[in-house]
């Protein structure tokens, strides 16, 4: 219920909001969370539990909440598994429980069977593979929380980079104080303060009603921070509703900011990013991440309306909400008395049960007793009563003897409708541990604290053990001083004095884990995964003793809350059961993310069109206009074929290939990698990189080269052009350009720094139009007057500078088809112009643009390899029958050469590239089909296979074991896929040069 006129610091009672939860309508206020609004409406049930189907409600008010998982909205805004405590209410909100508490649930129905389903149940059952296969899907149906989304996300996400001298994580008292201290004592240092909530203050709000000084300090400090944010935004950035979820190497911190407002949720057009990941690279980090309260352990501690004590306070102070009228407050530390006081002040009946005996009476206890609040010290709750909602508790007397808790005396019953518990505090050390830091167990505060010293990082406030708000403020100041000192901004440190015993301000007793309680059923450690003390006990008994094993065996801490409240209790229980100190048990490893991060946010804008850069040549629009289909090669979109109306790929390729062979074709070769090689040692460099000789290649000439790695395997090929003695232009394959370029740089810089060679990638600087076919010379003569194209003056494998249609060009007479061909290279921006001029001028020879598919057919007819298709990274030049390209007398042992003499590379049964002709000339072999021996074993496979229009028959290339020595032999290609029709196709091994074996076509027609 909502307390009338409670002065809430969070909720605006003047703005009423309507929302729907589990199909029921409710009202809340601006500033409410879904959780607080539902509590205000006395809607306490949120979920069924994972394993036992028990009905559960809220236990917390923040991100540590394990139970209240809901899905929000529908369609493209449907979001699964949100915690009701993290959803800010807006008008029209609609949410559904992840597991409807009011629906029939078989898990609860089979309650008598639960005793036969211990931790590790599934390891021990359905052991037969066939049985498991049958039952697995039925078991899976029970798993998971919300349903998965069904539609694409309508929202977008952004990433923003920041550089900061100081980042403060956590905007409670300590964080506010630290940020201010840094800002006040520095001039230009950039500071970022990150807090997960909408308003700075953290736990400080809880103190306002009892301590006016807290309210004043908060108001002043937040105002000062806001004025820094407004007036000095270069220096100070305030990120609220922002969770630092990961801390990576070298102070790289990732923060997820939630931007969404009610407006953007209801609008049909996405307006701005729903969430933003801030990637902060900070010099110094101040962690003020606070602490999470942990619950007390007792039987049936999971009943609805058993909550954490500080969360009850938070609902009261921040939202004016309380979910009971008669409250038992139970714990092992002094913080429970603050809760009692605050409830009492608001006329809510309460009883305090403190496991600690009253040896050191404190002031607040006397006050409470005086004002009529019942305080039972030296008592513990052994069991909560009630079927779903807590109705009362059973208590017994309790005493700590040595290190053991004793429970004794008669059981008494207290009735209540809300139970608030506090078992101490878990410092939020998660981030600190993300990149390798360790925690240590502090006996005084009974908590795992961050490793004390670390470079470029300070911890302050509750995460460092300073829990009281005044101590947190002072600690924040002190640690900020260290940070300023590390930055060199402050040389003389000023330090505030913290209260004595500040690290255990609440006098937390040791974990209350008497055997009498641990041995009871339904003492839950992890509410989300239904892990009980008995599960941990069984795990240990079976030999799963490491805390990591306990976690994995019982699933403790695996949930979406990552065990923020319960894990440390589990460690205490394990320590108790094994009889070893908690420090020896240790914690499980803390890993990102601290709280969940949407996949969409992780990906940011790098999806869809921006998943990977799309590269187009400058001629692209002409290809589109010609109706080209495209093939993605590397990042490039290359024309694949140019279908005319009604043509399929085969018909188009047939037409294109014949046009090239009989008259004239044109192709965009701009995507080939181009590397500018300059320097007095350019020749020597090429000689070391390529397998063949380069010392004598004359300016004006081109040469084909094959490149290997040190393993002796082919990695790339292409034509390099000698511009002059100190200048070459190398071409590479389209996909290999980047890796070849970086390999070349690596050789130059790391091995051969004595060579005078400079490289530059110029792929994007030139456009290349290839004019190919017997009529090519006639065409280029038309377009270029200042070059002598006569065959004896401009020979194959030569190049000439010239002017093509008024544009400066380098024209190379090289060919990847065996036909007469000229490649016109111009400055990239002229690419489309030249292409279009060529197309117009070529009309009289019916010039035909062709794509990569025809290019493949044409080159295969000539037996030219495609690196990456006919080779696969395990083929040597000898394997592809190109021993002719291995220079014998180069003084320098070129890259890869040494490996050629290794035994396995000389073996006779290596896969070798040969031609393959089907006996039936119309059968086109499927690429990837295997060649078999007479035992049916694979001896190789088909790398390339086409129907050759000019030969009017199929041709193929294949890697076959020892193939080069098996010319003219008949082999079988076995088709093993049903879709392709099971058969064995007889073929003859042949030379891989199928067309124009004498090479007569290369000069074309005059």
């Amino acid at each position, binding site marked *: 219920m909502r307390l009338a006129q409670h002065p809430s610091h969070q909720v605006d009672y003047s703005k009423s909001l309507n929302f729907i939860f589990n199909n029921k309508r409710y009202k809340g206020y601006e500033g409410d969370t879904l959780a607080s609004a539902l509590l205000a409406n006395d809607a306490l049930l949120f979920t069924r539990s994972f394993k036992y189907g028990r009905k559960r409600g809220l236990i917390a008010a923040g991100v540590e909440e394990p139970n209240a998982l809901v899905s929000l909205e529908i369609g493209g805004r449907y979001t699964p598994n949100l915690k009701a405590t993290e959803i800010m209410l807006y008008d029209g909100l609609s949410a559904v429980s992840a597991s409807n508490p009011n629906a029939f649930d078989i898990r609860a129905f089979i309650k008598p069977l639960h005793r036969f389903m211990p931790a590790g149940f599934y390891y021990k059952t359905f052991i037969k593979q066939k049985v498991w296969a049958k039952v697995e899907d039925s078991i899976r149906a029970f798993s998971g929380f919300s349903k998965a989304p069904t539609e694409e996300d309508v929202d977008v996400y952004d990433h923003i980079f920041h550089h900061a001298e100081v980042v403060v994580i956590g905007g409670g008292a300590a964080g506010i104080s630290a940020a201010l201290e840094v800002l006040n004592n520095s001039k230009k240092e950039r500071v970022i303060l990150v807090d997960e909530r909408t308003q700075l203050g953290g736990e400080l709000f809880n103190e306002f009603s009892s301590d006016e000084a807290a309210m004043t300090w908060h108001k002043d400090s937040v105002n000062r921070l806001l004025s820094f944010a407004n007036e000095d935004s270069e220096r100070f950035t305030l990120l609220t509703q922002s969770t630092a979820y990961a801390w*990576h*190497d*070298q*102070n*790289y911190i990732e923060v997820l900011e939630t931007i969404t407002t009610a407006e953007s949720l209801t609008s049909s057009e996405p307006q701005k990013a729903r969430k933003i990941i801030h990637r902060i*690279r900070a010099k110094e980090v101040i962690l003020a991440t606070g602490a999470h309260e942990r619950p007390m352990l007792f039987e049936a501690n999971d009943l609805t309306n058993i909550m954490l004590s500080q969360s009850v306070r938070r609902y009261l102070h921040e939202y004016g909400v309380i979910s009971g009228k008669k409250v038992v407050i139970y714990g092992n530390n002094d913080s429970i008395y603050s809760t009692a006081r605050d409830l009492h002040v608001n006329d809510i009946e309460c009883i305090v049960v403190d496991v600690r005996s009253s040896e050191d009476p404190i002031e607040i206890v006397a006050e409470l007793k005086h004002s009529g609040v019942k305080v039972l010290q030296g008592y513990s709750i052994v069991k909560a009563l009630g079927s779903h909602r807590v109705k009362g508790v059973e208590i017994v007397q309790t005493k700590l003897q040595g290190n053991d808790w004793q429970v004794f005396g008669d059981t008494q019953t207290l009735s209540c409708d809300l139970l608030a518990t506090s078992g101490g505090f878990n410092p939020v050390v998660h981030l600190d541990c993300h*990149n*390798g830091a360790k925690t240590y167990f502090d006996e005084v505060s009974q908590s795992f604290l961050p490793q004390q010293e670390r470079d470029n990082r300070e911890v302050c406030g509750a995460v460092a053990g300073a829990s009281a708000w005044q101590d947190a403020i002072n600690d924040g100041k002190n640690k900020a001083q260290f940070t300023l000192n590390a930055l060199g901004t402050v040389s003389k440190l000023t330090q505030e004095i913290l209260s004595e015993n500040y690290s255990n301000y609440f006098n937390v007793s040791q974990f209350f884990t008497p055997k009498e309680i641990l041995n009871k059923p339904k003492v839950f450690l992890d509410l989300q995964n239904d892990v009980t003390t008995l599960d941990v006990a069984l795990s240990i008994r079976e030999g799963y003793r490491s805390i990591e094993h306990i976690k994995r065996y019982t699933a403790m801490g695996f949930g979406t809350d990552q065990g923020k409240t319960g894990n440390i209790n589990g460690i205490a229980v394990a320590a108790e059961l094994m009889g070893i100190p908690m420090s020896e048990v240790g914690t499980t490893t803390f890993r990102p993310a601290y709280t969940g991060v949407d996949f969409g946010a992780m990906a940011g804008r790098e999806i869809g069109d921006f998943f990977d850069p799309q590269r187009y040549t400058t001629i692209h629009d002409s290809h589109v206009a010609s109706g080209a289909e495209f093939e993605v090669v590397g990042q490039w979109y290359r024309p694949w074929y140019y279908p005319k109306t009604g043509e399929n790929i085969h018909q188009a390729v047939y037409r294109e290939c014949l046009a090239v062979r009989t008259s004239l074709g044109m192709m965009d070769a701009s995507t080939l990698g181009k590397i500018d090689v300059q320097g007095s040692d350019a020749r020597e460099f090429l000689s070391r990189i390529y397998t063949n000789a380069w010392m004598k290649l004359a300016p004006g000439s081109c040469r084909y080269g094959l490149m290997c790695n*040190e*393993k002796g395997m082919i990695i790339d090929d292409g034509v390099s052009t000698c511009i002059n003695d100190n200048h070459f232009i190398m071409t590479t394959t389209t996909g290999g350009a980047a890796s070849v370029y*970086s390999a070349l*740089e*690596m050789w130059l*810089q*790391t*091995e051969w*720094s004595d060579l005078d060679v400079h490289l530059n990638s110029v792929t994007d600087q030139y456009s290349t139009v290839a004019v190919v076919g017997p009529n090519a010379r006639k065409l280029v003569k038309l377009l270029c007057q200042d070059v002598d194209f006569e065959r004896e003056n401009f020979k194959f494998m030569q190049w000439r500078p010239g002017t093509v249609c008024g544009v400066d060009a380098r024209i190379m007479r090289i060919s990847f088809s065996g036909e007469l061909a000229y490649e016109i290279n111009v400055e990239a921006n002229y690419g489309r112009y030249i292409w279009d001029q060529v197309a117009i001028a070529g009309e009289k020879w019916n010039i035909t643009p062709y794509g990569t598919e025809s290019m493949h057919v044409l080159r295969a007819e000539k037996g030219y390899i495609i690196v990456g298709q006919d080779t696969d990274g395990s083929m040597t030049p000898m394997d592809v029958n190109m021993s002719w390209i291995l220079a014998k007398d180069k003084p320098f*042992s070129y890259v890869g*050469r*040494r*490996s050629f003499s*290794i*035994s396995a590379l000389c073996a006779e049964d290596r896969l070798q590239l040969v031609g393959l002709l089907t006996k039936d000339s119309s059968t086109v072999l499927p690429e990837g089909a295997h060649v078999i021996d007479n035992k049916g074993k694979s001896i190789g496979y088909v790398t390339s296979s086409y129907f050759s229009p000019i030969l009017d028959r199929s041709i193929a290339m294949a890697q076959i074991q020892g193939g080069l020595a098996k010319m003219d032999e008949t082999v079988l290609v076995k088709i093993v896929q049903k879709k392709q029709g099971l058969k064995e196709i007889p073929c003859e091994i042949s030379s891989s040069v199928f067309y124009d074996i004498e090479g007569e076509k290369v000069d074309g027609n005059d």
Partner: protein
Amino acid sequence: MLLIHCPYCKESRDQSEFSPAGEAFIARPKSPEGISDEEWADYVFYRTNHKGNHWEQWVHSNGCRKYFLVERSTISHQILQVAPFGARNSETEL
């Protein structure tokens, strides 16, 4: 994500500007034909793969495109020092 100081640009930049390029100080044998298959394999394939402080090569691939040397802990990822190529040729040499 590492923060790497490029000794050529003289700036500390995000790892995403750089590419790792393997263990440092693996020199190509001066005369490959003069060594055994085993020695050649050692050069091509075998690595020290230090656990601890480790010299490696990085290239400022989206920056100045220079290769340089980095001494980095493979346990903590902390970078101890960077050096331009040629500044040293082995782990011990200064």
